[in-house]
């Protein structure tokens, strides 16, 4: 039986998807599961987290939205000293990877990041981690001397609903003075889905033709539920769309249920970022383009004709 801590993320009392995925990942290790919840003004989020025995909620004294890695690391270290967790799981998210790295250095261990599978092998826990954005996959484990085992899990992998009890809640406080001064947030436009959490991604490459061409994809994403717009490096480097949309080795690694590649040729560094999508659809007017070799379904033709039809037919099905 391991003692497991998951470090949960929430916004305004609402849990991010990664929080439930952390519970699922922890269940693969099996043991007593505790949660550490930060950046909240209330204990509301803990009431929405299923499958956890006990929640430790760290509330900031101020109402600042964002997070303070140093303060969190200190509170987390105190908690670890008392509870002595064997395994600590974070999301491989902007904030999760930050605190995990800093906390691990604080306790004197290295971490395994971006884990996509957890396997028990003769009493040893083995973690699957893609390298080179997925060009190679590795299986890794911690040296016996390492404690605790700290990992970050890739979003959108350990999915599935849990319906079980809600754990107890204990509040943690800190009086640390915070060296990072938060000055504000420019939120993403309302309704915009995070690329790494999207169920459907519609992505554009050179074949989109111009910056304006992306309007077609933005329109698709705005209408289809849980859909985000992706892009190839070529179009990001040309300034047609922001880097936050880039999929690939120097962008985001994504794994939606459905990846629709429009006018993307399929350069190796792009494929590395989306090969683990459950289903890949390629739309391209060039029948010889390499993307068709890895797509589950391909349509040869004009994307400007196909995408609007695909939107309306999909919406009919999704009803």
């Amino acid at each position: 039986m391991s003692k497991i801590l998951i470090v949960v993320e929430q916004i305004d009392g609402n849990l991010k998807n990664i929080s439930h995925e952390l519970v699922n990942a922890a269940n693969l290790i099996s043991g007593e599961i505790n949660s550490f919840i930060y950046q909240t003004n209330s204990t509301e989020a803990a009431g929405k987290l299923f499958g956890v025995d006990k929640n430790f909620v760290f509330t900031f004294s101020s109402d600042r939205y964002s997070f303070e890695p140093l303060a969190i690391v200190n509170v987390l270290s105190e908690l670890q000293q008392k509870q002595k967790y064997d395994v600590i799981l974070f999301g491989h998210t902007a904030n999760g990877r930050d605190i995990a790295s800093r906390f691990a250095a604080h306790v004197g261990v290295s971490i395994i990041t971006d884990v996509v599978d957890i396997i028990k092998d003769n009493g040893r826990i083995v973690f699957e981690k893609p390298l080179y954005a997925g060009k190679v996959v590795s299986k890794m484990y911690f040296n016996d001397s390492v404690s605790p085992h700290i990992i970050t899990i890739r979003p959108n992998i350990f999915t599935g609903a849990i319906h079980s009890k809600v754990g107890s809640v204990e509040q943690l406080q800190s009086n640390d003075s915070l060296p990072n001064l938060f000055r504000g947030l420019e939120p993403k436009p309302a309704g915009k889905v995070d690329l790494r959490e999207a169920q459907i991604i519609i992505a554009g490459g050179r074949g989109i033709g111009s910056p304006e061409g992306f309007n077609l994809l933005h329109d698709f994403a705005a209408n289809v539920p849980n859909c985000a717009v992706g892009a190839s490096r070529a179009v990001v480097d040309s300034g047609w769309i922001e880097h936050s949309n880039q999929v690939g080795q120097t962008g985001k690694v994504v794994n939606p249920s459905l990846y629709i590649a429009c006018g993307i040729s399929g350069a190796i560094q792009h494929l590395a970022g989306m090969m683990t999508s459950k289903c890949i659809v390629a739309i391209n007017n060039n029948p010889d383009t390499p993307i068709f070799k890895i797509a589950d379904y391909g349509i040869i033709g004009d994307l400007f004709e196909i995408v609007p039809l695909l939107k309306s037919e999909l919406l009919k099905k999704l009803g």
Partner: protein
Amino acid sequence: MNIVVLVKLVPDTESKLKLSNGAIDYSGINYIVNPYDEYAVEEAIKLVEQHGGTSTAVLIGNPREGKLLLNILAMGIDQVYIVDDPAVEGSDPLAVAKIIQKVIEGKPFDLVLAGKESVDYNWGMTAVALAELLNIPHTSLAINIEVSNNQVKVKKASDEGIETFEMYLPCLITCEKGLNEPRLPKLMGIMKAKKKPQTVLSLTEISIDPQTVGSHVSDIRIAQVAMPKEKPAGRIIDAENTLEKVCLLVNALREEARVI
């Protein structure tokens, strides 16, 4: 201001990897400066141009072809420290952070810049771990950095949007794509680069026992590396007209692939 930039050399993102004897076969691979570190290099040069001071790059590992480091010197970095010691091979991220800490120990710095991660193992731990070892604050995923007096304002590309933080120097920042456009070296820069100091250090020269680093003491063990599962070839959907093709596709997505 004095800026330290962490630099790593990685296989070119355009390269196709293969395995031999259960390990990645790096023979014939072209190396590049880690793309995210290039943003850190450019930012360091820019900040020194604006505020004065020096920029120092630190590389842990084999410098490969000399032209890679010459290139960042030609861009405008003032000097490079290289810890080129075979014992370093296979070190875990925390061990690498401790080596960097030793390299910069005793050298005054105001700011440490690094890429958000390296595009080889995609670890993303080393720079942040260094901030903890140095006991200085950090902000990661910077897409904008402004320094004034002893303060730095950073725009961070977070999952929620763009967050702004201010920190006092000294501090550490990791760089995200979009921060800047790394410059191409000019002829004058290329001429000067060859005269700029490149200091190669061994582990013992920075008071690290070679027995305490490397793969044999790594916190992390690699059980296996493998190529990803080959995706079976899919099919091209063909029909009389576009609408029919799209309808066939949507049906296949629901009935066969079950993803909608």
